[in-house]
């Protein structure tokens, strides 16, 4: 873990500097923009709470991708699993009306189950027919996208509205907002805690990590790869589904609107990648990305930089952190090799001297 911190910091700093250069080159005031970016995401109660709100789906999609990639399941289906989780919670919240004490846990279960079902399709196709999950999950994204679009513009359409969206769910399924703090964040934190413990401390977590390092080794070592694979895919899908479900349960809208998934799922994939599938790092990068996204709105307000700049900045951060990680590793290896060589050369010399001495 410690070895990763330095290259990550170098990468982030260089990426932020590159962002500064891009802003400067396009004629925006760079320092003022960055000041706005951070003041609108961190330096007031309201700003901080909206950052936590944005972090909620990012933590979950990030965990989803980290569990998948870390155990060698290339689940790229987060966008689809997210949408299916969201639509299932919407349908459940419209159809069922119970007190909040029952409704909230049940909705969470529905979101988890719906996401797991969608990733389960890809897992089943892989286990049964050996079909690469990375293509099937990608294709299932488009299918989920069109399927939910069909539902919200047909069977589940709110007839009083002119654009494709569903009616609101029953208020029992709404997560409370305390003084501006959305309690959905607590659900994400709970999920983070459970997944971290599972990943780092449990038997199946060990099997996942072993499988992620080397599937052949883990099978030889006695891990049940097939069932570990299935559970990793299901958990990965469930987490993405929960991210979608919380979009409906938290916040103010409580309905499925076209484009609700935004870019959260792909952001999660990037978060897992840049965190190298480490759970703590995934949580931290999710917070960092949400700072960038929340602050970008403020930046647009203050210095009129389009808020989409945060997307560019995120991708640059990922590229630079990954590059810095690899090049530091190469650099360290090179230095270590150089040192070993010098030591070996020194020993040779010493031995040579000794021989001379004995000859003399």
């Amino acid at each position, binding site marked *: 873990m410690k070895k990763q911190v330095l290259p990550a910091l170098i990468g982030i700093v260089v990426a932020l500097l590159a962002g500064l250069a891009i802003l400067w080159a396009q004629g925006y005031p760079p320092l003022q923009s960055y000041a706005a970016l951070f003041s609108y995401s961190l330096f007031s109660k309201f700003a901080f709470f909206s950052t936590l709100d944005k972090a909620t789906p990012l933590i979950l999609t990030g965990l989803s991708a980290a569990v998948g990639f870390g155990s060698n399941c290339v689940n790229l289906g987060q966008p689809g699993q997210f949408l299916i989780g969201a639509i299932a919670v919407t349908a459940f919240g419209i159809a069922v009306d119970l007190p909040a004490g029952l409704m909230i846990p049940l909705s969470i279960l529905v979101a988890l189950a719906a996401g797991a079902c969608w990733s389960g399709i890809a897992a089943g*196709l892989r286990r049964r027919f050996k079909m690469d999950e990375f293509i099937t999950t990608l*294709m299932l994204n*488009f*299918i989920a996208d069109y*399927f939910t679009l069909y539902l919200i513009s047909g069977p589940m359409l709110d007839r009083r509205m002119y654009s494709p969206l569903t009616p609101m769910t029953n208020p029992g399924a709404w997560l409370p907002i305390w003084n501006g703090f959305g309690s959905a964040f607590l659900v994400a934190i709970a999920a983070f805690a459970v997944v971290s413990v599972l990943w780092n401390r449990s038997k199946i977590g060990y099997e996942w990590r072993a499988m992620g390092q080397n599937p052949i080794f883990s099978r030889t070592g006695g891990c049940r790869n097939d069932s570990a694979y299935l559970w990793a895919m299901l958990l990965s899908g469930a987490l993405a589904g929960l991210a979608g479900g919380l979009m409906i349960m938290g916040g103010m809208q409580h309905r499925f609107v076209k484009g609700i998934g935004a870019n959260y799922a792909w952001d999660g994939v990037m978060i897992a990648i840049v965190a190298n599938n480490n759970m703590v790092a995934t949580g931290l990068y999710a917070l960092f990305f949400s700072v960038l996204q929340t602050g970008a709105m403020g930046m647009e307000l203050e210095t009129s930089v389009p808020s989409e700049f945060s997307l560019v900045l995120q*991708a640059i951060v990922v590229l630079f952190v990954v590059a810095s990680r690899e090049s530091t590793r190469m650099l360290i290896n090179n230095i270590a090799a150089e040192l070993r060589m010098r030591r070996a050369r020194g020993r040779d010399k010493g031995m040579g001297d000794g021989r001379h001495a004995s000859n003399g």
Partner: protein
Amino acid sequence: MHLMVEMIRSSILSATPVLLAGLGGAYTFHANVFNIAMEGMMLIGAFTAVAGSYFSGSWIIGVFSGIAGGLVAALVFAIFVVSLKTDEFVTGTALNMLALGGTTYSLRQLFHVKGAFMSHAIQSMPRWNIPLISGIPHVGPILSGHPFIVYVSILLAFVVEWHIFGTRYGLRLRAVGEDARAVDSVGVSSDRIKAQAIIASGVLCGLAGAYLSLGYVTLFSENMSNGRGWIALAVIILTRGRPMGLLLMSLVFGFFDGLGLSLQGTMIPPQFTQMVPYIATIVALYFYSREKHAAREGE
């Protein structure tokens, strides 16, 4: 009959971007580079093509800027993957996100619009009427009057087939894919060949993007590649990177894409018809896996 002609025409039109990207991906496939960045290269190409055509008023410059856009994306990919030795999957995914974010940002930055950019100032590619063929009944309407890149891409399929399987360079390329160290040991730089393969894929994906935004339609919209780069990746896996197979399979996918369009206006909701090419990809993958599996058990 008229419907039939329309359907085959639209298959050819929708097949072209998949074919072009697939031909580019064939180079990286044989060099054993996992090129998941094709989607992003295509998207960048589509954007730079529209920008080039809009600002210069010339479709030729538009097409070349599309190619240049794909090329620059490929250069970034090559620098990271070949020189810095970063993971291909990781870098490719990040590059796709950079393409999505970068084009969305530039759309607002350059053209001050959200979602899509349309303008009469964007000059689209000319459509070619083939003099002799266009007169033939039934065949003429199918084969004639397409944007010229359609013909270029079919021709390219043969050129790439010859280049990868018929030349010394192609042999080296495939050798790099088989065993890069063996190629290095005889004094040919495998890194250089890998970088060249990535650049070739960038150029062709850029061309595919230019076709999307200047030929297939004349506009740029957010994320307009819409998974075609990934379908191309699936097609490459299905055909094991053979350009002739790519030509055939991309026509099959074009057919399903076109089928989705033709079914619009029937009883089936449009969202289901739009799913067709993606479902077809999964089904094709199923048959491929079954066949591969059967072959392995037969051995």
